[in-house]
């Protein structure tokens, strides 16, 4: 190992798989405008080619590069090292709340299965033969959907949510945020089914409104606000059914 160097960052990287693992330490040369993803890529290219991690777009569009950086879930391709480095050190781990496949890559299946369980799929009423639905951008429902729509499925909110760690059946912020945007889509015809799905055990009523999800969402979405909206929908459906 080279001598500690101030123009090098000390990086602890979690190595292992579903069975367990431990941290490996690397010294990575500092570069201007370097991102955490650049650091991980440097390690894989120059120090240990067996390191597994995931990324695709490198510009904050695909949502595949999320990792825990110094204990906080972040999109690593858009996280500059100088914003998060502490005493010249970085700790990089796989996302919380998801099973690890290997090293920094975790298994996202349960995250996406929960989108399905929350009825996160659009199902329209019109066919392509019909005219495009006219929805005014000023409509309150459209505005509510708009606030929730820019999700890149990165699972950062899912990793930040303690209710997910306490209750593995909880749908989690991203799936519920998605359900909220569809509940506000007047073209969708499964509002009733979706409302039942998200009011069931492990649905929106399990959220404690701590807003960890909203604090770390890289696209500045607020799943807590969406979930609060779903709670209101669920409550009014309950009272209407009495």
């Amino acid at each position, binding site marked *: 190992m080279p001598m500690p160097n101030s123009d090098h960052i000390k990086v602890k990287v979690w190595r292992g798989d579903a069975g367990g693992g431990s941290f490996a330490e690397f010294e990575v040369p500092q570069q201007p405008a370097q991102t955490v993803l650049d650091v991980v890529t440097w390690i894989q290219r120059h120090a240990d080619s067996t390191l597994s991690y995931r990324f695709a777009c490198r510009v904050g569009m695909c949502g595949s590069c999320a990792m825990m950086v110094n204990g906080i879930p972040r999109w690593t391709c858009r996280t500059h090292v100088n914003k998060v480095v502490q005493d010249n050190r970085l700790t990089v781990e796989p996302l919380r709340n998801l099973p690890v496949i290997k090293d920094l890559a975790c298994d996202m299946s349960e995250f996406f299965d929960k989108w399905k369980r929350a009825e996160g799929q659009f199902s329209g009423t019109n066919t392509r033969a019909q005219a495009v639905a006219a929805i005014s951008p000023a409509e309150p429902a459209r505005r509510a959907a708009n606030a929730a729509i820019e999700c890149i499925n990165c699972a950062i909110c899912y990793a930040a949510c*303690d209710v997910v760690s306490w209750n593995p059946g909880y749908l989690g912020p991203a799936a519920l945020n998605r359900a909220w945007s569809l509940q506000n889509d007047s073209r969708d015809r499964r509002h009733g089914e979706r409302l039942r799905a998200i009011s069931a055990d492990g649905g929106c009523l399990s959220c404690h*409104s701590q*807003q960890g999800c909203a604090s770390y969402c890289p696209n500045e979405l607020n799943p807590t606000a969406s979930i609060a909206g779903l709670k209101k929908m669920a409550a009014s459906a309950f009272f209407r059914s009495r």
Partner: protein
Amino acid sequence: MKAHRRQPLYLAFLLHRLSGLGLALFLPLHFYVLGRALAGEAAFDEALSWTEGPLVKLAEFGLVFLLAVHFFGGLRLLALENMPWSNQHKNYAALAVAIAFFIACGFLLRAV
């Protein structure tokens, strides 16, 4: 505390939980003292006289704080879930703690 939890509304959540727990633990004691009233005036007075000590007064300050912080924190959550969304919840949570502290201090000043 884990890094991802170090944000104001997680602390508000924690305070709400712990104050609720504190109040729940206090309830049996409260009922016991009230129950002494059934055993006659003397027994009740004796139980009450125990509450005159300074340490108990300080504990009362804590108790009033717990009650107030749980009350105003609960109001905040009710507002969050039943009123139009607001982005001010960090401020509201801080306000709830400030009011609770104010009330508890007022109580302590009257108590001494």
